[in-house]
């Protein structure tokens, strides 16, 4: 579904205005740059686009024909005429929101969007599986952040259709999970959470707990062992500072530095 792959800039029309996309740039990215609002739920600039939520739909016109595409994935062709809001788009987004609201009526982000599109009571009933009002809308952000940013691929799916859920393998304690909380942070619907209790970080919905490390200076638990190991793989950090929490790191750094200067004076 990619427009041009020639590595050239593309000029197209966005809401009646001539605009230019960088090579390979999506319509959503161009729109954001130009302050044109398009609602999204499954998009985040730190990870690849997935096209799950269908809220970012826009309409592309060529001559008399047109079609709806997801702007987070669609790379424009030269001379595309694209509209980001009109009656057709509004109608489809409204339908999508009705479905989302029926599935996850407690999620503030969805309620807010639904209000914006004048959806009050959805016409749909949730399926038997999701009847307990799940907060997860299967936007895939946690899966992508875990794979692409954290590099762990601890989270994935199980099942299909209306039984599809987010889970770790077999739904139990996953050694891949480093307890970094990136999934909790990126989740747009607060479907995931963690709690630090008794020296362990409990990734609640993932049924996984990861041991925490106490700061060498203040004694407060501030990260998991596996998180620190990962950090060390990625950035060079003086050994003395790895088990020191961010708050103590500044003063500790000066102390370590002083000590080094005293014991090994410059020649």
């Amino acid at each position, binding site marked *: 579904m990619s427009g041009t792959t020639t590595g050239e800039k593309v000029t197209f029309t966005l809401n009646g205005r001539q605009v230019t996309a960088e090579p390979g740039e999506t319509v959503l990215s161009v729109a954001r740059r130009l302050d044109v609002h398009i609602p999204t739920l499954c998009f985040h600039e730190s990870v690849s686009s997935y096209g799950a939520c269908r809220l970012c739909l826009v309409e592309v016109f060529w001559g008399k024909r047109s079609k709806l595409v997801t702007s987070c994935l669609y790379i424009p062709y030269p001379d595309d005429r694209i509209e980001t809001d009109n009656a057709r788009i509004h109608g489809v987004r409204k339908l999508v929101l009705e479905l989302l609201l029926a599935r996850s009526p407690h999620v503030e982000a969805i309620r807010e969007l639904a209000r914006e599109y004048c959806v009050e009571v959805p016409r749909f009933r949730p399926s038997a599986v999701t009847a307990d009002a799940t907060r997860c809308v299967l936007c895939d952000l946690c899966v992508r952040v875990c794979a692409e940013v954290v590099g762990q*691929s601890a989270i994935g*799916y*199980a099942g299909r259709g209306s039984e599809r859920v987010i889970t770790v*393998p077999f739904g139990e304690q996953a050694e891949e999970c480093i307890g970094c909380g990136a999934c909790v942070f990126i989740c747009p619907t607060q479907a995931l959470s963690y709690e630090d209790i008794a020296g362990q970080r409990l990734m609640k919905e993932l049924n996984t707990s990861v041991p925490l490390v106490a700061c060498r200076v203040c004694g407060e638990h501030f990260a998991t062992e596996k998180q620190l190991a990962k950090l060390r793989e990625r950035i060079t950090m003086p050994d003395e500072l790895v088990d020191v929490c961010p708050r103590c790191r500044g003063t500790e750094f000066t102390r370590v530095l002083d000590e080094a200067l005293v014991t090994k004076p410059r020649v």
Partner: protein
Amino acid sequence: MSEQTATCMDTILDEVLGRYPARPSSLIAVLQDLQEALNFLPPVALNRVASALHVPRSQVYHVATFYKAFSLTPRGKHLVSICRGTACHVQGDEKVADMLHAELGIRDGETSADGEFTLQSVRCLGCCSLAPVIMIDREVFGNLTAAALRRALAQYRDDMTS
């Protein structure tokens, strides 16, 4: 799991993994062969497959739970697939399900007490003109009637005793 079944499982795993190149694209083929050989996909096997093919466990689990052809719990000796596709639905798939329940005492996803039959619902077996259709292992039984169904089941029961 006893030591003996553990080594037996290892042999099967080695053998099946040896059939395909050790890369992610072999995943489904490996799982199919394992399902065939073991009659289900136990966690140990899935974990081994993940590391052997360089696929994250999360993805192996996703695939294994996605396809109806795979089962994470032991299946009976014979798999009875009842078609719930549109044509079969119109031709009375509910009645077929009830007849199977009467005969075997099991519903969708269950295994009969004697461990002989597992029942699963599938969408369209691809021979709608024969609706209503069931499949036992790899054999298709179309235009089902109560009598035909009983005959089909008996055939498989006999298979086992002989």
